[in-house]
């Protein structure tokens, strides 16, 4: 299915560096015209493409440890693009692109059945329960490169696909067909003050993301780097967001294990 020179954009998030500061979330909101309401404390009603989770080792004081885990759309490949959400959409409003590996979401096609939300184990898909409204004048800060979603549709992180589109335009203008690694970076990657997020083409051995996790193509994209893991790898989602952590309990929190299973199952 994959073509010769197709790309597979993916992300590596170093949880040792991530400080949970929330810059990725806010950068994403500002870049992608995420609406906001007076009360956004019910996170299950709030739209935020990037969400930072707090993980804990569940030990009492003073052995408590915490880790912060930013979670964009995992852009699952599943097997041959069969991500959990794509195949369930009845109206073909979401799709897997073999050239980029990005799971698209077309808001104007979506009619809000929410099957994809039910299918996604990462909760990356969020519904527009309300009309997105901006206080008078604030709509001036909207980014014209990202369409504003209407009430009643599902939305999710797009890996800032508009930046890819714009980068390609620039390349075409300069007579190039291909773009460089640094020409297409997501807003969260760019904003992260700790430099915890790396973005690039997982098919390209020259790209940093490839070098950081060394995805094993023969083994469903599993990382060869022992510090790397993906969320819920055992479900077969074949996600394109990798996490790095030097802490065993953090890596183990990335997936479900039976009590009988050993400590180093993820490797």
């Amino acid at each position, binding site marked *: *299915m994959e*073509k010769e020179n*197709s790309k597979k954009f993916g992300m590596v998030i170093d949880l040792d560096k991530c400080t949970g500061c929330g810059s990725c979330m806010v950068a994403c909101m500002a870049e992608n015209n995420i609406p906001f309401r007076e009360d956004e404390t019910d996170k299950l009603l709030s739209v935020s493409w990037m969400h930072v989770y707090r993980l804990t080792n569940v030990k009492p004081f003073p052995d408590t440890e915490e880790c912060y885990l930013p979670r964009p759309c995992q852009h699952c490949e599943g097997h*041959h*693009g*069969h991500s959990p959400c*794509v*195949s369930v959409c009845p109206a*073909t409003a*979401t*799709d*897997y*692109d*073999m*050239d*980029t590996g*990005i799971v*698209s*979401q*077309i*808001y*104007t*096609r979506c009619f809000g059945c929410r099957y994809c939300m039910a299918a996604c184990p990462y909760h990356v898909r969020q519904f527009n329960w309300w009309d997105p409204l901006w206080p008078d004048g604030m709509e001036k800060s909207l980014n014209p*490169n*990202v*369409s*504003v979603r209407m009430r009643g549709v599902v939305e999710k992180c*797009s890996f800032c*696909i*508009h930046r*890819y*589109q*714009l980068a*390609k*335009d*620039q*390349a*075409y*203008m*300069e*007579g190039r*067909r291909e773009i460089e690694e640094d020409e297409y970076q997501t807003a969260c990657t760019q904003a992260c003050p700790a430099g915890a997020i790396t973005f690039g083409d997982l098919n390209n051995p020259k790209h940093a993301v490839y070098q950081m996790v060394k995805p094993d193509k023969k083994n469903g994209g599993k990382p060869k780097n022992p510090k790397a893991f993906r969320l819920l790898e055992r479900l077969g989602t074949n996600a394109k967001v990798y996490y790095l952590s030097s802490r065993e309990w953090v890596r183990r929190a990335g997936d479900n294990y039976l009590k009988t299973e050993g400590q180093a199952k993820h490797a």
Partner: protein
Amino acid sequence: MSTNEKVNEVSAETTEQDDSAAGPIILFFIFGLVVSLVIGWVVFPKILYSRKQQPVAFNHALHNELVDEGCESCHFFREDGSYSGVPKLAQCIDCHEEIQGESAEEQKFVEEYVAKEREVPWLVYSRQPDCVFFSHAAHVKLAGMDCVTCHGPIGESESLKVYEENRISGYSRDIWGKNIAGFKRNTWDRMKMDDCAECHRKNNVNQNSVQTHKGGCFVCHR
């Protein structure tokens, strides 16, 4: 008439219906059919679209003769690969700081807009909705297509046609196409998603979708 009588016989036994013949019934059917067809095909399109005049009657043909680089003289690419679209007043001012010729429209343009530094509220026939990402660079710079393929021979027009706006959707009629049934003859007659997809399919451009094996969504959407 014999069949009618039989009907009457039966109905006379079982119902209190008025007597009537099948002929008139069919006539009524045809009458209803014709009226609704006329409404649907002729009246409805007239009601559906509002007709708007462009603020200034622009003469593409005339301008085309005077510029060196064809369409791109005014509808140009920016350095970052984005496309400027309809020219802003700043561009027009380069030549029209003062009235050049004797056209009344030009005079109106200079007095109403240039002098008052007001942008001209052009109505754009090819305006696509917000969800569409259309890369002029990919089509013109990379694929080397000409403007006519999508926009038609607008460069040769001497005046701007009436802008017809769909009262419900707000789209220009040119998106759906002049033909209310949605048929088209030329590549530029319609600008719906299927028209983009058709050309992409023919040229095997970005046929990356896992679902449809056709164009990936994020090629044209955002």
